[in-house]
């Protein structure tokens, strides 16, 4: 009987670790995107990855890790707050830039062909 509990606990911690690792990886990808993308309106999309999937995975992993306790309820509250506030904040930033007259770069943005580069 004790064996089952041990295995279940192990699986729970493994699942929690995998979810948190996935969330941290998505967060890193979002940060790289914020640093790498060429335009303000494009960077918003990269920041959106951090706000959504990374949050879901990290908080989900922490909830699985802590089990049915008060901490997991608080973590769920944190997730709800982030889910309510982050799209509003993102929309506020984008709308302020749009109203201030910042023009997005449209069309196709591609890296220059190797033969057009100086060292190519």
């Amino acid at each position, binding site marked *: 009987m004790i064996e089952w509990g041990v295995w279940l606990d192990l699986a729970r911690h493994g699942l929690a670790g995998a979810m948190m*690792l996935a969330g941290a990886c998505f967060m*890193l990808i979002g940060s790289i995107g914020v640093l790498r993308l060429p335009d303000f309106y494009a960077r918003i999309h990269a920041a959106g990855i951090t706000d959504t999937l990374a*949050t879901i995975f990290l908080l989900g992993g922490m909830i699985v890790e802590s089990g049915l306790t008060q901490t997991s309820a608080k973590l769920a509250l*944190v997730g709800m707050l982030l889910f309510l506030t982050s799209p509003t*904040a993102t929309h506020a*930033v984008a709308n*302020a830039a749009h109203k201030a007259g910042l023009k997005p770069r449209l069309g196709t943005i591609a890296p220059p062909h190797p033969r057009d580069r100086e060292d190519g």
Partner: protein
Amino acid sequence: MIFFISLLITLSMALILARLLRGPQLYDRVLAVNSFGTKTVLFLCLFSFLINRPDGVDIAILYALMNFIGTIAVLKFFRYRSLDIALSDMAPREYAAGEDK
């Protein structure tokens, strides 16, 4: 494991700080600060697991709220050049209270 994940989050916070210092526009910086705040909230949650004291999650809740209010306040200030402005002067249209458009 949790320590490694905290390191990854710290790395992405450093990358966001680079954008915050470089960002050519004001809005890039506001976006970076907002994103940094979200990462800080998640880092605080993880940190309370790391030091094994669940009280840190309460601080994370507070930080999530303050991050949102701070972002909105900065944007409002740079749009109207003042924080002391009435709601009726801000909105392009006025809605009567409780009226569902």
